[in-house]
């Protein structure tokens, strides 16, 4: 063996002891977001058909004839030509900052843009243009002073984000990593399947806008608003009533409105006075997110957990509403699911968007004994419109279509995810 040099050893030891290497190095990487503003006038000028853009955050859906209108949550509306259901085309895009909900009557599309209601003429889907703006009718979506000029009202239209990494003080006594969760919005919409006519728009099942005859009903966090749309391009605000907190969805059926909230389903009668809906009942459940649909006999309520609703239930409740006219409703059965959101029913076939567990199709001829006849796990599903043998599903990465004309052979038809 070589002779050991003690000086070398001492030198190495000193190098270790005197070096500044023995420090924890902790980095914190987070997203830095910078808002992009435009004046209200400028935003409204840009609110028209433009070149199609790729989907980013898919939201609520409304189907009118061969066209699908899909909300790009908080940003705008995609217009999709669905003439060929095996190959739908992304036709155009309308910039509508702050948009979450849409509804259609005749050739007018109603959309929220923060606190405003926007009426868009969609008679030519390639040349959509605004017809009217109703100012500040949804003040809980970010209202502004009516006395302000439209040039001085600044609208948040986008965020520029970049990931930023900084050193974190490792001597900090405790590292708290509580994320910034302010008021997470959750998306919703609705389906008016039972009364769907060829030329009538059908919404997805989680909407907060619903058109019934000459009235547009909208729900916000705690209010039910009524607009008269007998002149479809000139909606007028008529009424607003307080329902309670946590209102999420509205679903019209016949002369009733089914309103989903965090704590239950409210049922309103609009037969006598459509401008002033009358409460006829309530079905309470544990705190959860809960879109609801009905076939007039049964109400199907999906409950899901999540940040906004703070619930822990993931299930579908079936409620007897056959005696709703007498103020009676009763829970019939509960089915456990993974994370159910939107749903749709066509005849005895029930479609449920079960979040990451995909799309589930049930034979609902006996609601006490639902039988799953098909299960697609193509995408994380959010909402659905099922009619005329075609199920249009809003997935996290685009629009999926399935053919269910033959219930023994329900099959995938197409996926639209880019601006094709």
């Amino acid at each position: 063996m070589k002779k050991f040099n003690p000086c070398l050893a001492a030198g190495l030891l000193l190098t270790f002891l005197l070096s500044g290497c023995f420090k924890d190095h902790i980095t914190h990487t987070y997203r830095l977001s910078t808002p992009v503003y435009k004046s209200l006038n400028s935003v409204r000028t840009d609110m028209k058909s433009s070149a199609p853009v790729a989907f980013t955050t898919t939201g609520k859906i409304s189907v009118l004839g061969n066209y699908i209108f899909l909300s790009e949550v908080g940003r705008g509306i995609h217009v999709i030509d669905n003439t060929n259901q095996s190959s739908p085309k992304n036709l155009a895009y309308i910039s509508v900052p702050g948009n979450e909900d849409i509804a259609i009557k005749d050739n007018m599309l109603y959309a929220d843009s923060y606190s405003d209601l926007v009426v868009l003429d969609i008679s030519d889907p390639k040349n959509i243009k605004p017809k009217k703006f109703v100012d500040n009718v949804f003040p809980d979506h970010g209202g502004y002073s009516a006395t302000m000029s439209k040039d001085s009202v600044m609208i948040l239209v986008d965020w520029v984000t970049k990931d930023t990494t900084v050193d974190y003080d490792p001597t900090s006594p405790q590292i708290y990593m509580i994320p910034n969760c302010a008021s997470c919005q959750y998306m919703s919409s609705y389906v008016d399947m039972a009364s769907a006519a060829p030329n009538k728009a059908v919404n997805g099942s989680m909407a907060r806008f619903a058109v019934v005859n000459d009235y547009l009903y909208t729900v916000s966090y705690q209010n039910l608003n009524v607009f008269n749309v007998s002149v479809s391009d000139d909606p007028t605000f008529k009424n607003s009533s307080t329902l309670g907190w946590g209102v999420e969805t509205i679903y019209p059926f016949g002369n009733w409105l089914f309103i989903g909230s965090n704590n239950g389903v409210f049922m309103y009668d609009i037969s006598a006075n459509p401008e002033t809906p009358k409460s006829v009942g309530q079905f309470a459940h544990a705190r959860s997110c809960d879109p609801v649909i009905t076939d007039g006999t049964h109400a199907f309520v999906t409950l899901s957990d999540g940040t906004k609703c703070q619930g822990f239930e993931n299930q579908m409740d079936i409620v007897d509403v056959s005696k709703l006219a007498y103020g009676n409703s009763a829970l019939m059965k509960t089915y456990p699911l993974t994370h159910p959101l939107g749903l749709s029913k066509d005849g005895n076939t029930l479609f449920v968007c079960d979040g990451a567990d995909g799309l589930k199709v049930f034979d609902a001829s006996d609601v006490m004994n639902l039988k799953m006849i098909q299960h697609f796990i193509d995408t994380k599903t959010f909402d659905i419109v099922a009619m005329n043998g075609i199920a249009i599903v809003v997935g996290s990465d685009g629009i999926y279509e399935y053919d269910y004309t033959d219930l023994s052979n329900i099959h995938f038809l197409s996926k639209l995810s880019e601006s094709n």
Partner: protein
Amino acid sequence: MRSYKYILTSCAILFVLSTRAQENKSAQPAGSKPKRAIQFQSINQIGLLEGTDGGAFQIQTINGIEFRSWFLGIGVGIDNYRLRSVPLFVDLRKEFKVGTNYFFIYGGIGRNFMWPTNKQKQDYHVNAYGVSDFKDGLYYDFGIGYKVPLNNRIAVFISPGFSHKSTETTTASNQPVICPFAGPCYPNPDTYKYALNRLSINVGVVF
């Protein structure tokens, strides 16, 4: 710095052991155990890890083969510095004879498997607010040492060195936790990366 006290204490112990070994020299020359070409060797050590977060103990066992003055083995241990973990690593050592004792250098590299205590998880909000569990990371160490044979089978040693382990946490990607305006919520990409660099002082026994 507390580590200096440990160094001095360890040096004193080693000095005593070294003196005792010298006394036994006539009966059994230290380090003169009959060497086969390749033989199994087990290194078992406890140590102090000293860094920004203060001191913590570690325990390791490294088992492998010795070939002439080289050693190659697999090590596993428990590292309780800041966040408890289990390093699993490959260890390589080279010895230099110094009289009847040995000077050695060592280095190891491997994976740092996180095994935080419930208290540590609670302190760092793991599984709350969308914070993920700690992820496994890199482990490596290197340093020098001084080994004193007690007889032809057993030796004791002290080895100061550098020890590194890393881990990270992120917020769960399926939780929409940033909602910049009425509209879409985005996953919060918050990530904390921990590169924990410590002075390590180990004492142990080799057989």
